């Protein structure tokens, strides 16, 4: 099934569903509309990455691997069959991942991210939130949004894919604000605006983005990190000056300095966020 085409086909349906919700909300409709407009104007595609993964992306333009691409690289390096490597990397989760990727066309090319409105994103998977420029997403044919984590939401027992659910929920980038409003609008209407980013994407949940293609560092609008982590690295400066920095921490701060260097070279802002 072509997830991206389904998303495009759902555009009008999303617009209609949003209008129905707006009509049903009555006096809260104004807040819902403000929420939707905010997501349309400020909602970005984002992915969370750990430091070493981010360094590889910034250091070698285009090396933005998913598990299939990573296994292919390892196959070239080691000579071991890709299927065997995939089983090794995915372990007990192999069947679920394969079921989804085989059901969706271009499944082996897919990258996974989330809709982002601020904050630090899905930090359980990476402490650096890479926010893409709007230009990277606009007009990208191979980009779709889903209600939530696809592997959790659209995989039924026995590794069956919920094709009906995918068909219903796939949403194009142009209509992502309607999806956000339908999922979170009722809550957003009663919440202060500064809490909307966490509603859209946090460690507790997210609107999933799936896309194909190879982004480059030039596609990034900003990289975001927790201010607490920055305080930690600054503290390492003192420990290093006193000769008390352990070997592991020494490598952490070296990696972090490499990141700052690469961000400067690519002119990518580093935003420190108080979580």
């Amino acid at each position, binding site marked *: 099934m072509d997830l991206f085409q389904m998303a495009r086909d759902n555009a009008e349906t999303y617009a209609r569903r949003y209008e129905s919700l707006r009509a049903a909300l009555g006096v809260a409709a104004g807040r819902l509309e403000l929420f939707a407009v905010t997501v349309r104007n400020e909602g970005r595609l984002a992915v*969370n990455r*750990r*430091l*070493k*993964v981010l360094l590889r992306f910034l250091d070698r333009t285009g090396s933005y*691997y*998913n*598990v299939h691409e*990573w296994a292919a690289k390892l196959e070239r390096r080691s000579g071991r069959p890709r299927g065997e490597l995939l089983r*090794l*990397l*995915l*372990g*007990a*989760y192999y069947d*679920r*991942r394969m079921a989804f990727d085989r059901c969706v066309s271009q499944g082996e090319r897919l990258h*996974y991210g989330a809709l982002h409105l601020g904050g630090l994103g899905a930090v*359980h*998977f*990476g*402490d650096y939130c890479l926010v893409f420029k709007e230009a990277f997403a606009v007009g990208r044919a191979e980009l779709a949004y889903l209600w939530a*984590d696809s*592997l*959790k939401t659209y995989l039924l027992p026995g590794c069956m894919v919920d094709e009906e659910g995918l068909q219903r929920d796939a949403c194009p980038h142009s209509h992502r604000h309607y999806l956000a409003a339908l999922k979170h609008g009722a809550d957003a209407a009663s919440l202060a605006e500064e809490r909307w980013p966490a509603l859209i994407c946090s*460690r507790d949940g997210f609107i999933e983005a799936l896309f194909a293609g190879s982004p480059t560092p030039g596609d990034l609008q900003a990289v975001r990190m927790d*201010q607490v982590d*920055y*305080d*930690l*690295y*600054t*503290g390492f*400066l*003192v420990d*290093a*000056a*006193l*000769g008390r*920095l*352990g*070997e*592991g*921490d*020494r*490598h*952490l*701060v*070296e990696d*972090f*300095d490499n990141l*700052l*260097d690469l961000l*400067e070279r690519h002119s990518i802002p*580093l935003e*420190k966020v108080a979580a």
Partner: protein
Amino acid sequence: MIRLLAIAPEDGWAFVRSADRILLLRPPYGKRRHPAVEESVVARAVAVEGFEAADQVFPDWPALFAHLEERFLAGRKALPAALAPEAIERILRHAPPSALESLLDRIEQEILPGRQWDAAGELLARFLAVDTPATAGLRPRAAELLVSCQQARSATGERWQRMTGAGRAPLATAKYGLEPVRAHAERIRQRGFFPAA
């Protein structure tokens, strides 16, 4: 008993099961909270986010942390203990005001009282070499600390010189011997004060 479920070795991240909870670990292990997560987070971490599936049991936390640190360091070259001056300046250049204030607090409350003049002087010199909006407001304080550091270092040096001179004094040398007097002077130099008799 702790079971390792998934690992991203090059970053030192891991999901483990301990006492019916799944925890996310990341370095430095002793300096962070380790949040509890749902099983579905581990599934996604492996299936999508580049973690490797694992199934290994450790008797206690030190054994687990030692394993994670070993995997984290595998293939990495040894680094010099000291950070390069440009690395220090780069980290300071991007630092938010709160981090810079904490740094000056530690210099004032920890490094200077510990008489680590070289460490304090180096950090403060690097701080003053950085010119950003965040450092601008803290430059006067950093400059004051650097002056305090230099004055304290000078005072210590003068005391040490006096004791070195005393070491050359013929009467003291004749009474105690040259080496004991020199060793005593060195102890005073390191402590920065004359110990009680």
